[in-house]
């Protein structure tokens, strides 16, 4: 309580940038979500700005009709507004958005999305902007790792994307993939085990190379 009685920390908390846009980055997401559920529409701007790119990226894995994906995202936000009163204040916002978007896209294009997902969905590449000086592996070696990930079944690629690259917890992954939480964990482990097996000979070659490097 003492904290809020003094004005000493003014500078550290100025949220408004000089370009006039309000910066939301340092906001507590759960608070924003709760405020939105209580009727504060301003929070939509925060949720939109924070997640629209993730949603668009995720949606593309199921459909290459970009306008359709965008429509689904917009509909998703309309529903958020409509369902506001019935949404849980404690759940993960990102998890909820991804689940709902996936459902929408699958509903709107079942056949297409299955095909797209199998063929083109969740295909990874190695992307490192700066080459690290004390690199332990060459870029090609990392590319091999990602090529092997790309050989996994699509559900395993998806779980790798959600868990490692979007930082989504197992309980949300479970909902997104329509499986149990324990299964989500098992699926992730299985994906990693398959990857390790697929890498087999390469892995030991990384290893010997590393010994030389040392």
């Amino acid at each position, binding site marked *: *309580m003492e904290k*809020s*009685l*003094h*004005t000493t920390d*003014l500078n550290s*908390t*100025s*949220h*408004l940038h*000089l*370009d*006039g846009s*309000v910066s939301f980055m340092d906001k507590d997401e759960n608070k924003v979500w709760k*405020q939105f559920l209580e*009727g*504060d*529409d*301003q929070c*939509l*701007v925060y949720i939109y700005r924070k997640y*629209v*790119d993730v949603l*668009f*990226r995720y949606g*593309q*894995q199921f459909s*290459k009709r970009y306008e359709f994906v*965008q429509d689904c*995202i*917009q509909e998703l*936000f*309309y529903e958020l*507004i*409509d369902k506001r009163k019935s949404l849980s204040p404690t759940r993960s916002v990102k998890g909820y958005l991804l689940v709902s978007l996936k459902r929408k896209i699958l509903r709107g294009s079942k056949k297409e999305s299955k095909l797209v997902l199998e063929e083109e969905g*969740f295909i*990874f*590449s*190695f*992307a*490192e902007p700066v080459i*690290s000086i*004390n690199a*332990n*592996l060459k870029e090609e070696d*990392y590319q091999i790792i*990602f090529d092997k990930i790309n050989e996994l079944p699509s559900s395993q690629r998806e779980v790798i994307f959600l*868990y*490692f*690259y979007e930082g989504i917890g197992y309980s949300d992954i479970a909902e997104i993939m329509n499986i149990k939480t324990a299964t989500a964990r098992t699926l*992730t482990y299985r994906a*990693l*085990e398959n990857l*390790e097996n697929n890498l*087999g000979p390469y*892995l*030991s070659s990384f290893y010997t190379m*590393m010994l030389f*490097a*040392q």
Partner: protein
Amino acid sequence: MRNMDKEHNIFKLLKNEHFVKWVQNPTDDSNHFWSKWISNHKDQKKDVEIARRIIQSGRLKSNKQLAENQYDSMLDNIMAYADERKQTTGPYLTRTFWRYTAVAASLILMLLSLGLLMDFTSGTDDKMLSEFITKEAPFGSKVTTRLPDGSMVTLNSGSSITYPEHFNEDSRPVELSGEGFFEVEHNPSMPFIISFRDQTVTVLGTSFNIRAFDQESYAEVAVATGKVAYAVKSGSKVVLTANNKATLKKGSSQFEQTRVNELADFGWLNRVLYFESNSFEEIRLELEKWYGIEVQIDGNTPSGTYSGKFENASLDEVLTGLSFIYRFDFTIDDTNVLITIKPKQ
């Protein structure tokens, strides 16, 4: 050859949730933990590095980015929809209802325009029947609304704005009561003119805050970006640029110019309740607006000013904070607050 029974360290690490969290989102604690772990497991330093880079350097190949105009227009649509729904707060109205309403509305519009055409041909006044729209943020709430030209206005508690359904071709006039933060779409050929009390603010495209509550003794314009012209209708005028503000006391025609204080002038947009040498009475009025409550005071109104801020705080938190300074007890009963000043010891 690799021993198939033994899992490689890289994969052990990738299965370790704590490790993955650290790479994705390092904190002081996890940095400490893992640097210690690495120094205790020097033989695995390289495994850690490889596992880290697998997590950090993977990207999806197919990743089309949203174009900027699509990004903006989607957000506009969403905010307009939220706004539309705010007008009819009934929980039973579904989107289907809205769809029907939209159809009905366009039918009515068609009929109206037909009617207008007929009026026109029969020689009657062809002035467009531009309706005025009023948006209001009641006490205890804040409302963001989009104007017909795409400009956005956020209204603070107890404020309202009135504007024509359509702007005509030469200007964008709106009327403000209370406090609003404006983000005006740039359009040099159509000045955006805000009237309040006997004053106006004219801009071409910029963002700024106007505070002009009737119950307060001053009006204030604070500019975040761009340039605005702030004028009393009867004469004097000042041009303000970014990070400057002007205050006009009631009954005066002399603008007082100062620099913007982000927390004081724009903090409310982020739900920061901010006081700077405010009297108890000023604080009481602000709380009534902010939380939509009525405050009764039992005892003598305390003297002395208060400076401080409350970020996204509940009424209870704010009152508890103030009660230490001003020495009072309080009870909250729905929207009624009773403050009992403690006798001096």
